[in-house]
């Protein structure tokens, strides 16, 4: 456990291209252990591609990605090891439609711990389901019987099945009503604190960014143009960052979060 001070994810010189289209070029990003990092960027800036590159679903054209000390794409340590140490929540939940929610959670357990007693596996699946705030009865339901918000929670339960150190969330609050979104944010924060998770979160939701993210990475011009807390980002003068956080929606989210001094600071930035 000597590498605990190492970053959870270290990306250097990442390049992704599809034919002639370059999505990322010279992208660098460090994600610290135990933080919630939010990744923002306009549509088409390759947020999802970045996540897919990190979790190995997409082989980058160039660059180096290190996740929890394991260099991705290098066979020296079995790949399977790293996959039991992260959990991924896809945008639509991506639940296996022929399995119930609890069986979805059990899939990873069966895969990595085949010797586990079925009773224990079932118990674990059940408390993971309830831990994500789903009602007890939801465990036996099929994904097609769940609402959008419940699917996300079920997907989260599956992502947490193996007690991962690292959690990837792809737009977790997209398509949820404000109450549901706030509840999901709260849940993410709570799980982060209880389980000591590192969370890599792609989002468009300004409230989520303000509420739960320790730092925010901004994706633009094919790379990460800035990383920092929101007040730090506001101090930068990149036009996109300003349009993003300082637009009408950004303002109201910010005012809700930092009443007083920072909003005053904003005025000052406006004055410049």
């Amino acid at each position: 456990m000597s590498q605990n001070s190492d970053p959870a994810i270290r990306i250097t010189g990442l390049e992704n291209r599809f034919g002639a289209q370059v999505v990322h070029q010279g992208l660098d990003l460090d994600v610290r252990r135990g933080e919630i990092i939010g990744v923002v960027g306009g549509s088409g800036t390759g947020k999802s591609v970045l996540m897919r590159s990190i979790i190995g679903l997409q082989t980058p054209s160039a660059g180096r990605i290190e996740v929890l000390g394991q260099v991705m794409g290098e066979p020296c340590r079995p790949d399977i090891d790293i996959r039991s140490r992260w959990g991924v929540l896809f945008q639509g939940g991506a639940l296996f439609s022929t399995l119930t929610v609890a069986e979805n959670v059990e899939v990873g357990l069966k895969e990595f711990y085949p010797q586990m007693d079925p009773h224990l596996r079932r118990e674990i699946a059940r408390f993971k389901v309830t831990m994500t705030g789903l009602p007890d009865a939801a465990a036996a339901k099929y994904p097609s019987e769940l609402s959008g918000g419940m699917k996300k929670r079920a997907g989260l339960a599956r992502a947490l099945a193996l007690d991962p150190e690292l959690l990837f969330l792809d737009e977790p609050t997209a398509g949820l009503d404000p109450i549901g979104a706030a509840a999901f944010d709260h849940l993410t924060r709570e799980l982060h604190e209880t389980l000591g998770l590192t969370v890599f979160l792609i989002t468009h939701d300004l409230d989520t960014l303000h509420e739960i993210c320790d730092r925010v990475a901004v994706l633009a011009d094919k790379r990460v143009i800035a990383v920092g807390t929101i007040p730090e980002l506001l101090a930068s003068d990149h036009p996109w960052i300003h349009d993003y956080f300082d637009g009408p929606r950004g303002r109201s989210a910010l005012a809700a979060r930092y009443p007083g001094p920072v909003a005053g600071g904003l005025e000052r930035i406006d004055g410049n």
Partner: protein
Amino acid sequence: MTAACDHVLSQTADGAAVLALSGVVTIATVSGLDRAMRQEEPAFATLDIGAVEEIDTAGAWLVWRLARDAGAHITGASAQAERLIGAIKTCSGVAPVTPYRPAFLTYLTAQTGKVVLELAAGSLRVLSFFGEVVATAGGLVLHPRRLRLTALVRHMQLVGVDSLGIIGLMSFLVGVVIAQQGAVQLAQFGAQIYTVNLTGRIALRELGVLMTAIMVAGRSGSAFAAQLGTMKLTEEIDAMRTIGVSPMEALVLPRILATLIMMPLLGVFSALVAIVGGASISAATMGIPFFTFLARVQEVVPMIDLWVGVVKGPMFGLIVALTGCYQGMQVEGSSEEVGKRTTMAVVQAISAVIMIDAFFAVFFSEVGWI
């Protein structure tokens, strides 16, 4: 790293049993501990986890459950363990994780009833679907400009032109088999020359159109079901309805019309290729020259055989396309349904085609179209 978790059962001075856990109690190690506990079923009043070095939610769960079942209290919990146990102990669900599955006999009875009811309801739905298709087609007759010509031509290509290769190959080979096997049997009566009659007549009357229907059902009927089914799942069809586009007009009718038009053409093509196949094998193994075979076909096969084949074409096409589109439009819920409906489309189309073909074979003979 070989993480392990040990447990020791001991007695304190006042006689109370203490179960002490040590080492790593995480998801990787709980299986062993769980199994040991199930075998030993120890009784203890205190669960000491002071020596536990690492714990996660799975470990916390097991610790808490062991304590709960034994009625023991937990001591020595680290801040981390305390927090995790606090988080999971409110999550002890008791609900079943699989849906209710009835006993076999109940299931059998229920399933039989369901199938019978479904058969009745299904027939009604097919009928209403067919009615809708006819009504839409009627609307098109009144307003011919509403016909989706691009879609129609595209599906004519997909159903017809693109399948020429595979249907040609199959028909050729079937022609070869009929001629060759026929010749072997007929030679026993010295009637080898009737191989021509056999091949020519059976290809035009039956095989051409039947083979085609089966191939089209497998190729296009299944594609219709899968396409429409997926569009139903992704709400594309609902979106169409809200915009005011009738899915019947835009999706179903072009597919049905295209199949209707292409089937007789493909059937004739298939029959001709089968005859060529028969002629080829006859030339190669029976000493009947290729062109003599073809000339002889013209002499012995009456025109009525062609018409019998051609008349069945649109009928089979209608069945195949209708089943495919109907099953596609019935998809609801999950992606599994798409697969199920696609299979049903193919199976039902092929069975219906063969049943109707059998009926026609007898019918045409009875009315004297021999």
